[in-house]
């Protein structure tokens, strides 16, 4: 029964970590090495940032920028805003981000692939949806006409982006979107690709220019910051599991104390035969750890069973605008087992200590 209780605790922990892991994976996969994001100083979300036209021109002339095969610098000004899709079903209404881009964006974000349909044409009210968004909200799959702001937009295709957060977005033409949101003086953010080995001089140039009061971060770092929510949720899961584990530890102690009480005579005999304190401690701790480990393994098997039986593995979930799926990584499994062992050690040590201290004569006398 104690092992089963440990199993439940481990199951809860691995399930929760599986959610958090999936969310975090989606965030971390979003950062492309070599790509940088430029935002106004101090902001954490793209839609709160503002990069002026002038700042963009200065950035565009930096020699550190990589270029595509035609010689165009790989720098992509982008506008990001919320979109509340007018679905009949208010409970499951899609609220994706809409990102306005120029064609160069498809070369800066180089993992973008066209899955079906076609890319939106420049200067038109056409949109393309991310793979995960289209999967979760079939009402957005092309071909479709949809109302956004003051006009109708045509959805003309679906793109993939290596499982990143961009797959939860809708992309469209930059100029059309800027008109729609009344933006005249600049953009929300700028993404750019640097030539290998030039990030140092790029950062120095940014820091040295008073006119460029912007902040640049490698994409990987930006999305790692974004994974903070995932980290918060993970802390929450760990606290929750720890409190439950403390309950299981007390229960386990109960069992072990009474097991030792029952075996007092055995312990006396073992001690009389010459077993040392260390030997007894080791034998009881081994018993505890095997129990805990068995509980841990059972808990993880339960997790896998629950995940498959409820279809968790294949379901797309969302936190805010981010769509992700439940992911059981080896790290999650390892964490679950480590947690089970920790429960075994903390719960087993006091009773084992008590067993070790039983005096031979008393034990044999009691028998």
């Amino acid at each position, binding site marked *: 029964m104690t092992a089963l209780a440990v199993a439940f605790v481990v199951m809860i922990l691995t399930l929760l970590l599986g959610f958090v892991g999936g969310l975090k994976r989606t965030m971390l996969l979003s950062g492309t090495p070599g790509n940088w994001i430029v935002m106004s100083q101090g902001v954490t979300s793209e839609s709160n940032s503002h990069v002026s036209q002038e700042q963009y021109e200065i950035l565009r002339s930096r020699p550190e920028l990589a270029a595509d095969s035609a010689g165009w610098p790989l720098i992509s000004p982008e506008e990001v805003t*919320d979109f509340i899709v007018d679905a009949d079903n208010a409970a499951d209404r899609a609220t994706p981000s809409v990102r306005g881009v120029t064609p160069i964006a498809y070369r800066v974000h180089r993992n973008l692939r066209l899955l079906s349909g076609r890319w939106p044409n420049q200067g038109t009210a056409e949109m393309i949806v991310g793979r995960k968004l289209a999967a979760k909200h079939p009402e957005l799959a092309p071909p479709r006409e949809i109302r956004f702001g003051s006009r109708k937009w045509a959805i003309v295709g679906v793109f993939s982006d290596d499982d990143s957060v961009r797959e939860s977005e809708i992309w469209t033409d930059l100029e059309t979107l800027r008109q729609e949101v009344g933006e005249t003086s600049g953009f929300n953010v700028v993404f750019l690709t640097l030539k290998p080995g030039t990030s140092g001089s790029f950062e120095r140039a940014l820091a040295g220019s008073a006119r460029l009061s912007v902040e640049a971060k490698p994409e990987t770092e930006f999305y790692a910051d974004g994974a903070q929510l995932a980290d918060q949720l993970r802390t929450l899961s760990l606290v929750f599991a720890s409190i439950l584990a403390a309950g299981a530890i007390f229960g386990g102690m109960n069992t072990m104390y009474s097991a030792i009480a029952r075996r007092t005579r055995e312990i006396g005999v073992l001690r009389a035969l010459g077993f040392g304190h260390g030997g007894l401690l080791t034998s009881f701790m081994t018993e505890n750890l095997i129990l805990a480990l068995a509980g841990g393994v059972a808990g993880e098997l339960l997790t896998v069973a629950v995940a498959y039986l409820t279809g968790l593995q294949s379901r797309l979930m969302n936190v805010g605008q981010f769509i992700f799926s439940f992911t059981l990584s080896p790290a999650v499994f390892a964490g679950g087992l480590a947690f089970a062992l920790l429960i075994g050690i903390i719960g087993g040590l006091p009773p084992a200590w008590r067993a070790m201290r039983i005096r031979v004569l008393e034990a044999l006398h009691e028998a």
Partner: protein
Amino acid sequence: MIAKIILRNMRRNSRRTILTAATIALTTFLFAMLVSIPASMDRLIADASTTLRLIVNNRTRGYQGATPARYCREIEQIPGVIACVAFNGMMATYRDAREPFVAMAASPELPRVFPDYDLPASDAIACAADRRCGIAGALLARKYGWHMGQQVMLRDSAAGHMELNFVIGGITQSRRYPNNFTFSREYLEAARKARGIDDHDLAAFLIIRVAGINDMPRIARRIDETYRNSGYETRTTTESEMIAGGLSQIGNVRGIIAALCAVVVATVMLLAANAMAMMVRERISEVAVMRALGFSRVAVAKLLVGESLVICLLGGIVGTALALWVFGPGVNAGAVLGGVGSLFVDTRDAALAMGAALLVALGSVAIPVIAAVRIPPAMAFRRVV
């Protein structure tokens, strides 16, 4: 008599009693915390349904969209509308740039639309006279250690990176707005204009207060129809619909909570059943003696079940008291409640958790006790001798 024996029995293996009670206490604490999450959501939604307020948003762009503030003057002409206030949001930071919160700039009609701010009249009047006045919610004020009359500088994280100075002119104690910060919309507009940003009178959203709850659907429809096919189409929802929408940010929170509760109860049930079974097993010989002395099955069962109930009750009381102490004053639940409102454990949640503890007490002890009292005394005696 029975009570005395139960208390004596509990002390015979006090280590086990304490460990079992501690298990129950911890899990009751968790349970109270879990049930308070959906309960806090329901309370937020239910509270909002009595406020007689409608939110007018940009139809497809939501809170990042725009709605002209002049719509307010037109909407106030609709019969049944009491007042309309225009809001602009600002992501503000105080000292720590990594902890932004929403500061709302509101037009002067604010007190007529939000009478439930519970601000002393003298503060409200003084605030209206000073455009640098900022009104903070109790939790927010506590977090930053703000007091009345204090000068604070907030930084706007959006375009322009403005730094705005405020004087704290009111701290609302209402549990409904623990993290609010509101100030004058004119002040924000003027500050932005001074930096060359003209908002063309566009507000982020409008909130209106109506005379009666029955008017709400009619007025909402009328507003949306009026502005259909204009440059700024609207979506008008009730305040409770708006909050319910914000709460559904983390997929199916209720389902997850229910599942977690079930596992917590199952875990503690296992642990308690184990402890109770040990307790009963030790007492088998006594049960035999008592039965031989003429105690009825019921009397013996009462004794054993009573002990389990007392232990679980003790644990339950400690657990719920802990939950009330930690979560009673309210904590910021952050993402769990979609950033809206705060988490409270109230007496209803505590009672629910106590109920769960009692259920565990009865459930865990039932089988061992039935088995114990069913053994004929003669059979039980065999174990004694």
